């Protein structure tokens, strides 16, 4: 018995045939999708010349369509979105209240002025709309235009937002997208595509979107698809295995835009303890960074360094902050955060052992799998820090600002920091160790697509930056007249 079906969407056409069963995670949540073997040849754009229709429409028209798409995603009225919500309840680790919240807020991602700001800030609308001319010092006129490309997207499945961002990035850059559906968010991409086809049937934006499921790593499908004659770019979101797997297909003419698996860190300065009110606010903000998206996001807080010192007073402060964060964490409303749906067994074992190791760790909560704060009683994070999940965070007291660089490495994305003065102090050093985004404590998971991501500019990378030079021999010294230089 299959929990749900994932139709394929081929540039306006919905494919609901050749149903093949897939295991789902752990085999318990089997689902069906059209046989990818029979579908794969129909996924790519037949010819690169077919991208031309995207240049018959204006940027304003792209915004018109995306705005209409946003309006049509109304959770109460849109059956595709409702189905996506139902399937996500089976396939994801998120509880219903949180999923519902994410689908209800989906339309806001397509806010017209926000999209305009995104395109202007990250690329420059002039470059998308036409050739931007600059005169260079050597006399030539350089004209640059950002063209779209044929891309294959492997979006992350923790939240439907990633599929929405994928779609809008594709549209704004006038690109062609083949979206590989993630098994933990099975129907959002299809819902977006079907709604797009409803609001803009036959429109170039609809004709340049294909969505299908195949099992990640299915070489029989991927070897036929991941070729320079079909696609020029692969945009792969996290999942170490999935990103690493994709690298086997890279070759000249096919590049990877890797939005790697990431973890995040938190740093709290001694100012947190200045008053009860401040401590309370800091605890609320930290709890939010741990709890939002039930700690499933790359930006979620896990190891929290506290600059309170490691002496008796420092430990007392760390423990007090830990208690307060725990209180705030379990008090978060259920549309923001809940007790986790699935708990990592190994982590639970470590928590049980930590409870018996009071010299080094104080474990606050976690007896009912509701989430927990482990306060290290020494200046070192728990050795199982990579397992932290399900609203379990580790507070680490440190004496010295130098020790917080431990918090940051090549896998670090976001660093949430309190207070702002500490952030300014750290912002020129932390990036050297790997930090990519520094943000105010409490905002780690409050992200916007209108900024660089993972220390790259994905929108610019998705474009092909084409050059047209005009060289007038009167202005640009002609090589054929170049004398021999001795």
């Amino acid at each position: 018995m299959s929990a749900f079906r994932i139709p394929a969407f081929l540039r306006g056409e919905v494919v609901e045939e050749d149903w093949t069963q897939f295991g789902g995670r752990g085999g318990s949540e089997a689902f069906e999708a059209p046989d990818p073997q029979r579908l794969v040849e129909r996924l790519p754009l037949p010819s690169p010349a077919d991208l031309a229709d995207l240049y018959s429409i204006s940027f304003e028209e792209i915004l018109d369509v995306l705005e209409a798409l946003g309006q049509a995603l109304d959770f109460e009225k849109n059956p595709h979105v409702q189905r996506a919500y139902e399937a996500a309840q089976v396939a994801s680790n998120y509880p219903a209240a949180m999923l519902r919240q994410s689908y209800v807020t989906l339309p806001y991602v397509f806010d017209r002025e926000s999209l305009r700001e995104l395109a202007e800030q990250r690329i420059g609308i002039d470059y998308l709309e036409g050739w931007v001319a600059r005169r260079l010092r050597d006399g030539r006129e350089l004209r640059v235009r950002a063209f779209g490309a044929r891309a294959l997207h492997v979006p992350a499945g923790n939240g439907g937002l990633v599929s929405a961002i994928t779609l809008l990035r594709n549209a704004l850059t006038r690109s062609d997208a083949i979206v590989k559906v993630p098994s933990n968010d099975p129907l959002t991409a299809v819902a977006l595509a079907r709604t797009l086809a409803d609001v803009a049937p036959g429109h170039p934006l609809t004709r340049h979107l294909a969505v299908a499921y195949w099992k990640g790593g299915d070489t029989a499908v991927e070897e036929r698809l991941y070729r320079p004659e079909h696609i020029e770019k692969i945009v792969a979101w996290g999942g170490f295995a999935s990103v690493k797997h994709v690298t086997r297909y890279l070759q000249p003419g096919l590049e990877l835009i890797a939005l790697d698996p990431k973890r995040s860190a938190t740093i709290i300065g001694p100012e947190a303890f200045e008053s009860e009110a401040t401590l309370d606010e800091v605890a609320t903000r930290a709890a939010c960074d741990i709890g939002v998206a039930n700690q499933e996001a790359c930006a979620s807080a896990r190891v929290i360094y506290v600059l309170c010192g490691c002496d008796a007073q420092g430990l007392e402060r760390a423990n007090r902050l830990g208690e307060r964060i725990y209180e705030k964490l379990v008090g978060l409303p259920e549309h923001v955060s809940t007790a986790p749906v699935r708990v990592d067994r190994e982590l639970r074992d470590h928590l049980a052992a930590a409870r018996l190791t009071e010299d080094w760790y104080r474990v606050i909560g976690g007896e009912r799998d509701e989430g927990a704060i482990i306060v290290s009683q020494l200046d070192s994070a728990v050795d199982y820090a990579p397992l932290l999940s399900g609203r379990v965070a580790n507070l680490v007291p440190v004496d010295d600002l130098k020790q917080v660089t431990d918090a940051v490495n090549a896998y670090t994305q976001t660093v949430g920091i309190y207070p702002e003065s500490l952030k300014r102090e750290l912002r020129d050093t932390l990036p050297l160790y790997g930090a990519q985004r520094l943000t105010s404590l409490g905002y780690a998971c409050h992200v916007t697509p209108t900024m660089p991501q993972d220390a790259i500019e994905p929108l610019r990378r998705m474009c092909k930056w084409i050059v047209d030079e005009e060289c007038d021999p009167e202005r640009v010294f002609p090589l054929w007249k170049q004398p021999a230089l001795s």
Partner: protein
Amino acid sequence: MPETKNLDLFMNDPIAFYDGSITKMHQVPRDELEAQQRLAMAARFAEHREGIEIVRNLADRIDVKEVREFDDMAPLLFAHTTFKSYPAALLDGKRFDLMTKWLAKQTPHDLSRVETRGCDSIEAWIDELDAHSELRVITSSGTTGTISIIPKDDAGGFYSMRLWRLFLFQEFGVEPDPNEPLPAVDVIWPNYASGKLGHLRMVELLKKEFTGGDESRFHPLYSDAVSTDLMFLASKLRAAASRGELDRVKIDPKLLERKAEFEAMEKRRPEELKAFFERMTTQLVGKRVFMLGTYALMHEIAREGLDRGVRGVFAKDSAILTGGGAKGHVLPENYMDVIREFMGVDRIQEGYGMSEVSAMHWACPEGRYHVQPWTIPYLLDPDSSQPLPRRGRQTGRAAFYDLLNRSHWGGIISGDEITIDWDRPCACGLASVPIEHEIMRYSEKQGVEDDRITCNATQEVHDEAVSFMREFEA
């Protein structure tokens, strides 16, 4: 009701209690055995609650003063992570004073004579523990940047080996002849010759218990010792790789000084392997031996032997012990036949056990592992850790309460999924609780996850790194 004196014997010397007969050990009617186990459990708990600090702490916290029924013990079972609950930073910083303090809370043995000043490596610390306490700790490498450290003692180790000998040389259903002592044999040890890792600690015990004290009858594959400090480094490397922090790993200069030595060990290996094979197929031909190793290792050796045209190497009444799962190897269906044909023995015995528990549960002719009478088996719900009913056929997470071991707390939750049919007696005729042959590690089961992608780097990164290390090691 069994008498107190009998209870003491049952708990502390089951060999004497059962007259040295493995058949008697496994023919006790279930009710009678369980009554005895309950009394022993209550007594051992009282002893360890008094003597082991973390047991007392846990019992106080959950307010357990005594245990009567088996399920009373469930909240007192320790996760296997308990033996690596110390911060790895202590080993990195060579704070063996604090490590001793941590260890002292896990064992009733007195560690007050242990002097850690001057200990500059894990090996040196363990040697000091050996010298000035009753502990003989064993270590195992982990993947989270730490190593497990299990406080075993000498007495327990030797007792385990005596038990092994009984099970290796007796047969279920055949009472031992008191006039015929167990034989001394050549021990074939396809492994390193020494070290503090769990199985390597057995070497000294094996030599004494099995060879009749003649060290020349002990035949290791490699002549070298495995360094615990090197194992700790390997564990740190794995953890660092999973965190993207390989650039931060600092190798202890003392260990780095030994790099050439480790490389020489590696270089010697092919030669030693050849010599080992040579010895097995010439000097040891026709001898009554005891050989033990994992399925994969045994199969590899046997396959190699058959390919060279060697078969039927050992005396028919040799003792061959295997187990340990396939450990990531894919074995052909007939692997047991291959092993048997090469060795030329009547039977190959299989055992199921873990370092934390003093019992090896031996397989009967039906292939089921029969639980030793001095361990109480539990099946736990893998998610809630609640005990499953002790009736019908149940599959769950294996846990054991070990009544015999005295050097550390005996209640351990394993990482294994096992199946027990509580009601149906095993066709082999033994009365003891049978564990089905199919045993799986939960960590292996998790491998079925396919293409669930999140932007969050956690377990999969970690697994990837471990397999990277394996490739690296290979």
